[in-house]
């Protein structure tokens, strides 16, 4: 089982090594990086390229670690018992399997994605240490230990909203998805929109990296925003010349809504455009 990237996903060499090490040593891989650099996509593509089923566990701020294992719906059982439902005599009817259980029960080696682990409570990763390490857990209600048939490939993503505990980190491989350079970016664009107009892409990439360099942006546009933007440019069949023109009155690129997601950032751009206009007028007189 080796991951070599797919035709839809451009994996850099270091990413491949990290993924393959995680697969070979059967340990979780923690992936960090700017939002929109393809952390979640990675799991989907790894599953696709390994031909393995993908089990996704999206973590929210209310998610508890035990929910990944199982949940015992005591309230439902109480209700049922009041209504005289015979099912209520068997506790197993009220145990809901979580994503980890699902992954452990799988006969073929699955890919388990624990998405945005940092969204949950601080203690969340700590509560999963044993489960991720030994790939087994104990169900008190059923008096049974669930053990992984095959150790799943586990990918964990984090947006760095919270610090993860050391003990948790020590059990993982770590990869930080660096923001792609222009060359990689071109390969990524090519893999998403094959045969795209090169000139348009060149101009768009130039603008894109320029925007990323503007200091003070609240949210710098990332790969996924660039891809969305290019899609808009392509569907509207924008002329590359429009992008190329450095006319200050058009300093804000067309369809900027796809790139700038924050009204403060748009305002910043408008202000810059205004300044540039004034500068030009001042220079001309």
């Amino acid at each position: 089982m080796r991951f070599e990237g797919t035709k839809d996903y451009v994996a850099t060499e270091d990413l491949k090594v990290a993924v393959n090490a995680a697969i070979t040593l059967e340990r979780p891989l923690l992936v960090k990086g700017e939002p929109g650099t393809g952390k979640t996509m990675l799991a989907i593509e790894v599953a696709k390229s390994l031909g393995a089923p993908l089990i996704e566990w999206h973590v929210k701020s209310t998610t508890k670690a035990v929910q990944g294992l199982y949940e015992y719906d005591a309230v439902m059982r109480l209700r049922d018992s009041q209504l005289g439902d015979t099912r209520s005599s068997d506790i197993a009817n009220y145990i809901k399997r979580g994503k980890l259980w699902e992954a452990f029960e799988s006969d073929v080696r699955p890919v388990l994605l624990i998405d945005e682990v940092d969204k949950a409570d601080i203690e969340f990763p700590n509560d999963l240490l044993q489960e991720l390490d030994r790939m087994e857990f104990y169900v008190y209600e059923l008096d049974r230990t669930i053990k992984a048939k095959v150790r799943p490939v586990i990918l964990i993503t984090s947006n760095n909203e919270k610090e993860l505990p050391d003990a948790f980190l020590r059990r993982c491989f770590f990869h930080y998805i660096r923001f792609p350079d222009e060359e990689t970016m071109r390969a990524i664009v090519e893999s998403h929109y094959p045969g795209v107009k090169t000139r348009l892409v060149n101009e768009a990439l130039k603008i894109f990296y320029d925007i990323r360099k503007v200091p003070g942006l609240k949210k710098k546009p990332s790969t996924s925003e660039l891809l969305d933007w290019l899609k808009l440019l392509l569907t509207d069949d924008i002329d590359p010349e429009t992008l190329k023109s450095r006319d200050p009155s058009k300093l804000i690129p067309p369809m900027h809504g796809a790139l700038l997601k924050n009204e403060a950032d748009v305002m910043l751009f408008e202000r810059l455009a205004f300044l540039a206009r004034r500068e030009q007028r001042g220079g001309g007189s």
Partner: protein
Amino acid sequence: MFQRFFTELRAARVPVSLKEYLVLVEALEKDAIAPNVEQFYYLSRATLVKDERHLDKFDRVFGHVFKGLDSAAEAVNAEIPAEWLRALTEKFLTDEEKAQIEALGGWDKLMETLKERLEEQKERHQGGNKWIGTGGTSPYGNSGYNPEGVRIGGEGGQRKAVKVWDKREYKNLDDSVELGVRNIKVALRRLRKFARTGAPDELDLDGTIKTSARQGYLDIVMRPERRNAVKVLLLLDIGGSMDSHIKLCEELFSAARTEFKSLEFFYFHNCLYESVWKDNRRRHDEKTMTWDLLHKYPSDYRIVFVGDATMSPYEITYPGGSVEHWNEEPGAIWLQRFADVYERMVWLNPTPRAHWDHTPSIQLVREIIGPDRMFSLTIEGLDGAMRELSR
């Protein structure tokens, strides 16, 4: 096998443990990679580094161990540009003063000593007659009384702020320091104020029993979970006189990070003026207006200043008193504005309590924010500060 690599990583303060090292060895044993240096670099990076903050340090150690490149330490040491010193200082020295410099052994000698002392001196210095600092009689420093002093920053003759000669690239506060912060955390825990907000997803046992008894059938009552509702705005003094306290600050900072639901932080220098900043490396181009802070964060935020409040009194009371830029309004007005808006505000001061009464600027700050609101940066002081904040 790679023990030197391992120990050097630890020496460079990349937090690697034996476990990670063993995993690396195991990975090599299982042939997880093709045998070449690049792949080994990627593999060891994925195994040993668990945080992007350490990637840079790791790269330097790797280069050093496996290629014999320059030691990482060299890049860290700051250089003191001698020409820079000279050019800037010459600008505001009169001929008379220059003659006095000759009296002290000549320009070069003076600059050389200054350079030496800058390198030697690790801590902020106040008073005394040798080290560079404020209020002393050494020829080096500012607000001093030695007529032949080389003024470094501080007040110029024309009542105009002279830029500090040294635009040091203060290092960003590294929030990774976890050393000995446990007791700080415990003290900060006092600040937690739990409130029930959000969706009802917790069984209210008492409520359930009560309503079931009343209704005659099982009636489940749910309630929202308790969450920490405390919002904190942290304002940290960075650079200049705070250099010696930076470690304490770092510890506080790293402790605070994990303790509250909402925590915002900003940096200022010496005293609060019209702007603050978030990223210390970009402090000159990415500023946030202090007015924006006052408007953005409602008055139920708790404000924590961390600073030694040790500076020349002018920096607080006069417009243009700042050592770094020309400020239209004195720092005192800005502090007063904060004190007016925010009911719960404390100032944590790392200088020992015994010095407070002898430092006019500390007294000034205490007058503005309230005498009982300044606490020393010790566990005890922190405890008191948190008590004050949670009242």
